[in-house]
């Protein structure tokens, strides 16, 4: 087991190296980069130097005067030591900006995750218990509609109904107009209030796959021999489902959910941008648009780490939850 984990970790490092190299290469090739924009703005000021002079000066200042390969190794050698530099767009250290916005994304992701689990697993089980019933069809259709819903369309409908027509929520933002006047608890409640629509959007859009996953696995378990045995010896249907079957579908579900835990930190770029929640998704969207290389590099790398960690957790959990795997 330890050997397996160590091997996977080493592999992850290699993968990260290549991923960061590719991303750095792409970022450096971006023609509308931050530095060019800055040089253009500065050169248009009255009595300023020419565009070319500004460009040369800024490129030297931002460390872009070297080639792509050399630039990458400069970046990588600092990144290994945990120095990700300053965000150009936000003018503060990348890590500092990151730690100031990540908790919005985490709160959003966690709330959506809990809602998703609470709705998807019971309904998936209900669908599997009565296969081909009206309940089953309804849940299947709802799940597929959730998968198929464009998040921006769903978010717009929610905004239209609840913000415009009913006026229950604000259209944008994480805090209300009178946020500063509120007490500490009031501030938290105000933010929670602004999170409601994004959370609904996120969970509805991602609820479908978990629902279907639960249904498929429940169907498989319910057809297993030990369920038939349990029924044959006269265990009540409720106990069969909630005790015998449920424990067994936990194996795949815990594995899946464990694998998605890291993605709670990854932020939801589209949803956050639509609702202007200042989380990591929205922040990195702004940075991508501005060509802010240090921040985007950090964010992309962070996302890649989350994916790798997620896979690792899923593999480890699989062994932890299911003793049969460990034997082999």
């Amino acid at each position, binding site marked *: 087991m330890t050997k397996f984990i160590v091997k996977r970790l080493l592999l992850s490092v290699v993968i990260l190296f290549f*991923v960061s190299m590719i991303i750095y290469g792409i970022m450096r090739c971006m023609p509308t980069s931050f530095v060019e924009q800055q040089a253009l703005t500065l050169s248009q000021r009255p009595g300023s130097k020419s565009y070319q002079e500004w460009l040369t000066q800024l490129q030297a200042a931002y460390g872009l005067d070297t080639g792509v390969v050399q630039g990458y190794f400069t970046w990588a050698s600092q990144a290994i030591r945990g120095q990700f530099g300053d965000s150009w767009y936000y003018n503060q250290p990348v890590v500092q900006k990151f730690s100031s916005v990540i908790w919005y994304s985490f709160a959003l992701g966690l709330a959506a995750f809990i809602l998703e689990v609470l709705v998807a697993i019971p309904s998936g089980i209900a669908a599997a218990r009565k296969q081909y019933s009206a309940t089953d*069809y309804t849940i299947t259709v709802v799940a597929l509609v959730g998968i198929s819903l464009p998040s921006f*369309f769903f978010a717009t409908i929610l905004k*239209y109904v609840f913000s*415009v027509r009913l006026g229950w929520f604000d259209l944008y933002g994480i805090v209300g107009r009178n946020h500063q006047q509120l007490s500490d608890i009031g501030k938290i409640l105000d933010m929670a209030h602004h999170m409601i629509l994004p959370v609904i959007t996120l969970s509805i859009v991602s609820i479908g796959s978990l629902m279907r996953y639960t249904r498929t696995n429940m169907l498989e378990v319910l*057809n297993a021999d030990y369920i038939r045995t349990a029924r044959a010896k006269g265990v009540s249907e409720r106990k069969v489902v909630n005790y015998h079957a449920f424990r067994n579908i936990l194996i795949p579900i815990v594995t899946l959910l464990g694998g998605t835990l890291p993605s709670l930190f990854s932020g939801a770029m589209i949803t956050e*941008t639509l609702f202007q929640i200042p989380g990591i998704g929205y922040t990195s969207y702004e940075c991508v648009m501005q060509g802010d290389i240090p921040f985007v590099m950090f*964010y992309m790398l962070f996302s890649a780490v989350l994916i790798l960690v997620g896979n690792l957790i899923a593999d480890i959990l699989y062994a932890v939850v299911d003793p049969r795997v460990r034997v082999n």
Partner: protein
Amino acid sequence: MDNEKMEKNENVKLDDAQRVRVLSPGMMVAKRFFRNRLAIVGLVIITVMFLFAFLGGVAMPYSQSQVFYRTEEMRKDFAGATEITEFQMFTAEGAELPSDINSKLLIAVKKGEYIFESRSGAVIGLAKLSDSAYLIYGTESVNEPKIMMSQECKDAQEAGLNWFVYNDEIYLVEGQGAKGKLYRGTELAIACKASVTAYDPATSFSFEFYKNVLTAMSLGEKEFESEGASYAIEQEGEGSAMVHTPDGGNYAYISNMNINSFIDGVFLTPDFKELLIEAIAAGEESFEYTDAEGETDTYMVSEKNKQYTVKRYQNTRVIDTYASPGKEHLLGTDGNGMDLLARLMYGGRISLLIGFVVVIIELLLGVLIGGIAGFFGGWVDTILMRFVDIIYCIPSMPLYLILGSVMDFYKAGPTVRIYMLCVVMSVIGWVGIARIVRGQILSLREQEFMTAAEATGIRVSRRIFRHLIPNVIPQMVVFASMEIGGVILAESTLSFLGLGIKYPAATWGSILNAVNDSYVMTNYLFVWIPAGLMILLTVLAFNFIGDGLRDAFDPKMKR
């Protein structure tokens, strides 16, 4: 056919294998697929979408980038009228007025001192005609008691006038009787709170005419002579009058209102002014006027601080933006005045096309690389799969955003954007199918039929493509139908963010982009609801089909 043979051949036993109709595996899958109601619904939706996008675009009379116009009646400012409160100067030919004449004139009128000195030292005299009309003279002091004592002077003083004509010369008197000072005047100008408009735009008046008509008007005379012609004045209410030529024709119009046209090149006729002044006097809010071309319009008069504005409805050609759904545009028009139904159709083409193209490229890449990795195994497999891992780890959304802004910078045309989007999406997306294919082939190649195939000694490529790949087709088909939905979703998200396909080419996502304007979102539901439903329905249909296919291929899962 088989059944008929069976019926004739009565002596075949009931459990004879020939009696059981054997379906090919493909038929079995098709049969199971068509039994799935949701899959049929999906198939119908997709068919309708294809007809809508590809045939609908042909049948539609409008193109996706045709801009529509409508004429709209807009109330536009036509003319302005102000009551004349300041003296208007009509200067004599060749005469020059002191620069401070306006202020000096006001002071003089207010104080009733009709002889005053301008800043430049010239002595100016005023001859009062009425409260709102004065003749302005340059003066020189004369000391001739004879004139002072003349009958004309006495008459004038009795009438309360400060001027008289003696020997065809104008004299101004300051003070009363013997103490009075006498001045001889030369004409400079006439100051008057009135405007004179010629009936015929070609006519221009001489100072002589101005002087005579305004003098006559101020003194309440009915007729006057000027430059050898005689004219009649017809009073038409407070401060306005019509000047007739001897033969009774209209010659000029005098009013105490200053009326200007707001439109270049439009000459306001005295008739119009007359009607306007009547309307203002009567306090009416609108009046009708027939212009030179015989068109009758209604003009609206509004007043603000004694400033009157005349407005008129005018037909203006404007872009038909956000027209409501109706006969001409079944789904209305968007913010650029383009027909939404046509844009939905053409947008559907692009969305569906991108979905199919991307998935086909993904399948080619994925099957090729996954197949090679799975078949050869060993270090080939290790290297290829690590490569797959690397691509899998690159977050796709930021990458698409970067691509979008790169294309923005190069101002790529809509077609180039479509191609680039297809290429990048498939380069990122193929890793999923590669993993599936590899896993499947890894297990298949250990099976006995592959050992048998190897034993017959056929070529490697034949073993892969004839014996292994057909066994992966179920996974590929299911993956493809689900992935098309995903690609359409990703493309519409990009277009929604304004980074995918751009104007004038339409996609469903870029039509939905209009909701970034909250006003459109709130008031023009017909702009964004249909496009969103299109995306939802299409993706949903592909998912229904994929789901049905999975169940049909793998009946174990269904049970």
